[in-house]
């Protein structure tokens, strides 16, 4: 197996002031918990950091200025890994995956290899590529997981950029028109809501009910499910937290909401994440921090199959996010 030197360096922002919180690892130990893998059933593919938006909460610092994007060779290695891994779910993310020129090819090659294929979309990037992408998405029954942080224009635009709320509504209508999010179509459209600031998301079930009511009443938009996730203090969101004087308070809030019962269901226990250049991570947040899976730089072409159950998961303080409250994962 091809293994480079161990690399697990935390990225310290120069303007970051040290804060006094218990390291995540010691909190786990205090509760006599270990974070190790179960059976890995999901392959998450990060196609790159190129994005048409510069969202304030982005943990990857993705944006139009980024040129990291998966090439055809790496894509073929990912497809070969999916064939070896027998995953149940393939989760395609970015950046904006729609901006990768090989996305259609990836969908066509990987769809026969896993029962469930998901594409995370910011909607505005999908709009730009709709004519080229909609047929492969429909024909392969790709689940669209769309960012939609708030029912309010100002909140949405403050997080994602001016005009994004109205553009998102327009794209959701287009998706509904071709069957996505409509009962009985077999085309699943899910929404993801991230808080528009330094606070936790609302309870998922109640929020989903409210989104169903309001989106249908105001815009005749329908969808399948909604997921609420907390923002992870990395990348652009961390920079915003520091600049706005919210970093310490947010971290303290995450720590004080640590829930030992949430550890059991963390996504990193069943998911492996591959970056645009083909290296493996325990999750997309560790990818943002350059914290390689098992602390080693392992290329996907060298990996025989899914990581073994029992393999320890690399942790850092951003892991408090997924372990807060009832668990945001």
């Amino acid at each position, binding site marked *: 197996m091809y293994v480079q030197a161990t690399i697990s360096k935390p990225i310290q922002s120069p303007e970051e002031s040290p804060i006094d919180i218990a390291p995540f690892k010691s909190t786990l130990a205090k509760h006599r918990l270990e974070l190790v893998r179960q059976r890995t059933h999901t392959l998450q593919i990060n196609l790159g950091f190129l994005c048409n938006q510069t969202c304030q909460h982005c943990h990857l610092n993705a944006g139009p200025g980024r040129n990291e994007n998966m090439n055809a060779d790496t894509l073929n290695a990912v497809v070969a890994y999916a064939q070896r891994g027998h995953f149940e779910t393939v989760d395609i993310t970015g950046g904006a995956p729609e901006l990768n020129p090989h996305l259609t090819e990836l969908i066509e090659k990987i769809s026969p290899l896993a029962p469930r294929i998901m594409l995370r979309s910011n909607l505005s990037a999908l709009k730009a590529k709709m004519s080229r992408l909609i047929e492969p998405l429909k024909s392969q029954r790709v689940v669209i997981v769309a960012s939609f942080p708030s*029912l*309010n224009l100002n909140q949405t635009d403050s997080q994602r950029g001016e005009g994004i709320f109205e553009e998102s509504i327009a794209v959701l209508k287009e998706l509904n028109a071709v069957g996505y999010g409509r009962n009985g179509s077999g085309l699943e459209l899910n929404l993801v809501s991230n808080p528009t600031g330094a*606070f936790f998301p609302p309870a998922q079930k109640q929020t989903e009910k409210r989104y169903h009511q309001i989106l249908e009443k105001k815009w005749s938009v329908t969808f399948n499910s909604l997921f609420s996730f907390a923002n992870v203090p990395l990348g652009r969101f961390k920079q915003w937290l520091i600049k706005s004087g919210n970093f310490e308070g947010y971290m303290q809030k995450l720590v004080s909401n640590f829930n030992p019962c949430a550890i059991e269901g963390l996504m990193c226990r069943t998911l492996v994440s591959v970056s645009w250049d083909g290296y493996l991570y325990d999750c997309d947040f560790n990818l943002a921090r350059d914290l390689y899976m098992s602390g080693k730089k392992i290329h996907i072409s060298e990996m025989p199959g899914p990581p073994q159950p029992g393999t320890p998961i690399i942790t850092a303080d951003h892991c408090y996010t997924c372990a807060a409250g009832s668990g945001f994962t």
Partner: protein
Amino acid sequence: METYYKPEDLPKFEEIGKEAPELAHKFFEYYNAVFAEGELTEREKALIALAVAHAVQCPYCIDAYTRACLEKGSNLAEMTEAVHVVTAIRGGASLVHGVQMRNIAHKISM
């Protein structure tokens, strides 16, 4: 400058139970039950609390329920409307007493 209201005092609220624990226990149990989801959602209750916080002009409550409203999924436009509701009621309460004023004035005037 020294002030009566300090943000760091808000998390110390439960210390009020040190001198009268049974009363505090009853109060906080009731308080938590009030804000649990019932016929009204937690989000709706937080909006009512935010409005009342403005009526009683409690900085602790305004801080706590601004955060609670956002965390329950409300947005600034809804929260602003809630503050207008309480403002209308406070203003209306003053204005409606004008009827009393008019009654008295009419009674003693020619």
